[in-house]
């Protein structure tokens, strides 16, 4: 009996094509079979999963307390995965008391030990999964395993370890990350490092200071950006030091961080930074002054409105509109500056904030303005165009300074 190819050869000249046809048809059927098997498997899997989840939810308190022995589900990977998923999801929304209860359960049931083991000994995606799960537990005993993960050869695993440590959000986890970057430099992109450090250093931003002092280059910039996000008023003196740094990134970070400092001290520093030669330092300074919500900052923000950079002007406009106090005197000063770009930025911010009606109302009743000036300002507000410049000093007589 000849082979199937021998029989098919009678119908055509090319063995190659016949073989290709057979292979392609076989592949077609194999793929269709794979789809059907996959579908059937999924249907069965989700049915079974639903049943187990329902049962576990019904007996959740008994599961957590250990009334249902841990061994009944811990040794079954299917059940264990469900329990762990439910616990980790619950963690995300739990308050301190519930978190403590869940953490105790994770410890007693051995789930944390299991994840620590996987994070240390597994490879590839299994290690990645364990690292992130460990981070989600926020258990302190997971920190060393996560720190090991930072030194993995695989970049994705390093990222997972970073995310895990970031999720821990504890100063201990932060110290591990800081030690790691001090040791090897930035071997992953800066954004994930910053994200993780922000979460970890929020509670105790002081841990950043020694690393900031002893690092250089890109690492220093990254740490400064983290500092900008987590700084508290207690770090004011360090921030003032940073504001004089030669690296613009650091000055920008200092400016951003100063928004959390005491306005009396911050305004002077920020006013200096708002005159910086680098645009993004000026931008950060103007935004930070806006966040201070203090009238002391208004004259400096007004200067930002005449900046050569569009973004600085826009942010200055937004900051001015959000400033406390009356708007009419500020608007009078904006008009008096005779800068059409500045005026446009201010009006755009005013309209975007929906505050135009409020300004119109204020202008109509502003007593510090003479009638003619009031009309002129109303005209500027309506047309968006500046009036003809007046001789110097004229404006100063009529416009009440907002802040000294």
């Amino acid at each position, binding site marked *: 009996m000849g082979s199937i190819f021998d029989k098919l050869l009678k119908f055509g000249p090319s063995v190659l094509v016949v073989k290709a046809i057979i292979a392609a048809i076989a592949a077609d059927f194999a793929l269709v079979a794979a789809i059907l098997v996959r579908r059937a498997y999924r249907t069965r899997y989700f049915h079974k999963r639903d049943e187990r989840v329902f049962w576990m939810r019904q007996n959740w308190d008994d599961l957590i307390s250990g009334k249902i022995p841990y061994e009944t589900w811990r040794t079954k990977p299917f059940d264990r995965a469900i329990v762990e998923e439910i616990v980790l999801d619950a963690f995300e929304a739990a308050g301190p008391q519930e978190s403590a209860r869940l953490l105790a359960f994770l410890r007693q049931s051995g789930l944390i030990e299991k994840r620590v083991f996987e994070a240390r000994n597994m490879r590839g995606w299994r290690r990645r999964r364990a690292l992130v799960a460990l981070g989600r537990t926020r258990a302190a005993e997971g920190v060393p395993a996560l720190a090991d993960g930072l030194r993995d050869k695989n970049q994705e695993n390093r990222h997972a370890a970073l995310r895990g440590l970031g*999720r821990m959000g504890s100063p201990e986890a932060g110290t591990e990350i800081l030690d790691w970057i001090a040791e090897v430099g930035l071997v992953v992109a800066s954004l994930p490092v910053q*994200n993780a450090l922000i979460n970890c250093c929020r509670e105790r931003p002081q841990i950043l200071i020694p690393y900031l002092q002893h690092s250089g280059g890109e690492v220093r910039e990254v740490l400064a950006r983290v500092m900008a996000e987590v700084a508290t008023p207690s770090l004011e003196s360090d921030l003032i030091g940073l504001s004089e740094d030669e690296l613009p990134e650091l000055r920008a970070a200092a400016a951003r961080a100063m928004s959390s400092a005491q306005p009396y001290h911050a305004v002077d520093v920020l006013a200096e930074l708002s005159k910086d030669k680098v645009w993004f330092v000026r931008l950060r300074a103007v935004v930070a002054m806006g966040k201070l919500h203090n009238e002391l900052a208004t004259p400096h923000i007004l200067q930002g409105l005449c900046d050569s950079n569009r973004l600085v002007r826009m942010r200055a406009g937004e900051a001015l509109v959000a400033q406390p106090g009356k708007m009419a005197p500020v608007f009078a000063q904006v008009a008096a500056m005779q800068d059409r770009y500045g005026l446009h930025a201010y009006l755009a911010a005013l309209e975007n904030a929906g505050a135009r009606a409020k300004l119109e109302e204020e202008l109509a009743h502003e007593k510090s303005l003479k009638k003619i000036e009031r009309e002129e300002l109303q005209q500027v507000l309506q047309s968006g165009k500046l009036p003809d410049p007046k001789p110097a000093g004229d404006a100063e007589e009529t416009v009440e300074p907002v802040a000294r």
Partner: protein
Amino acid sequence: MGLVLDATNHALFVYYLVCNMVYLVTLIVALKTSAAHQRRLESWRLKWINQSPLTPPITVLAPAHNEETSIRVAVRNLLQLDYPDLEVIVINDGSKDRTLAEMQDEFKLRPVRAVYVQEVESAQVRGFYRSAEDPRLLVVDKEAGGSKADAVNAGLNAATSPYVCVVDSDSVLERDALLRIMVPVMVDPDHVMGVGGIIRVLNGSEIENGHLKHVKLPRKSFEIIQVIEYLRAFLIGREGWAQGNMLMIISGAFGLFRTDLVRAIGGYRSKAIGEDFDMVARLHRHLREKGGEYKIQFVPDPVCWTEVPSDMRSLARQRARWQKGLLDVLWPNRDMLFRPRYGRIGSIALPYLWVFELFAPIIELGGIVTIIAAAWLGMLSQHFFFEFLLYGYAFATMISIGSVLQEEITYKRYNDWKDVAKLVSYCFLEHFPYRQLHMMWRLQGLYQYARGDVTWRPLKRQGLQSAQAR
């Protein structure tokens, strides 16, 4: 004559063999990449991106030209997206219908000034409107510029975020689409310059309050075939090519770019027929010429649902336009071919597009002509012909079923058994006569381009409102 026909047959055989090998390799790479991507997602929590203070702001740019039937649903959908720092700019590109009025009614628009610097070329802007209901929404009302590119450029000038996401205003994004498309950026913001998401066919599905409620297959057969085409193009083609950093197209319906980079290359080319393809080609050129490492990526899980043509005439127009767009981009970039400075873009991606995409309908037509000629001259080996036909059929079917399998093992949007059965059936049925018609439409596109006919002909659409009402 016989020798010529014989040589042609051999050449065609080699062409199809190489083409099929490329498809096969792409399918294998895509299946592998998808599995890896699924694993990668397990270690990501989108919520963390949403909570991070460092997640970069995004400006969504939605150009709208005569979209009165879709605009309310589309904009509502954009404003409901999960993203921490979002700005939505809708560009009303000289609509002659009620597009602007619909938005004014729905979102309580009020005229505002905007800091608008014409960094990239676009038609005259008539005014700006901001929603009193949701200040994240800015509407740029402009004169008709004659192209989507012109409208996007106006939005680009008004955008204030470091990333812009260009979407179609007749499309619906899934709620977490922006968070998902940002995953590659969050991992490596220094190198990722653009990211494309997947486009899926909306026809047949139901929308509720700006969100997709039920995913269903459309009823018409050629709409179902388009579903398969989209699955094949995105889940296999783009996934595979992106793996080698050779992605040449990020769909205009849903793509994310770095704003400074798009501005640096002068924005979208207003006269481009396929502005999305043109943008990516120019980005590659710019970044290759500049030197240094960069990535243009594709992620298969952020989904944009879009309406595809539901009548033959519109479909023919669309496909002809795509073919014109292809030529319109490949021709000006012909100098990139085989030049070492353009790396694998010049040596693999572009040659592939020339040979297996641009010339494909011509070569297919050539194949049909030689077969007819050979049959007429009595030189056609019927056995060989039928075997070759059977092989082509079985192989092409395999690639299509592969894309359905890819969908099935990864993203599982079609949950109904009937829908999957239909999809698989159409993998067998799409080859006759749809494929031949498709070839004709593409040839028509090339012919129109050669004649200098580059006018944009509107496609007939039902609009999102109809999906909402279903």
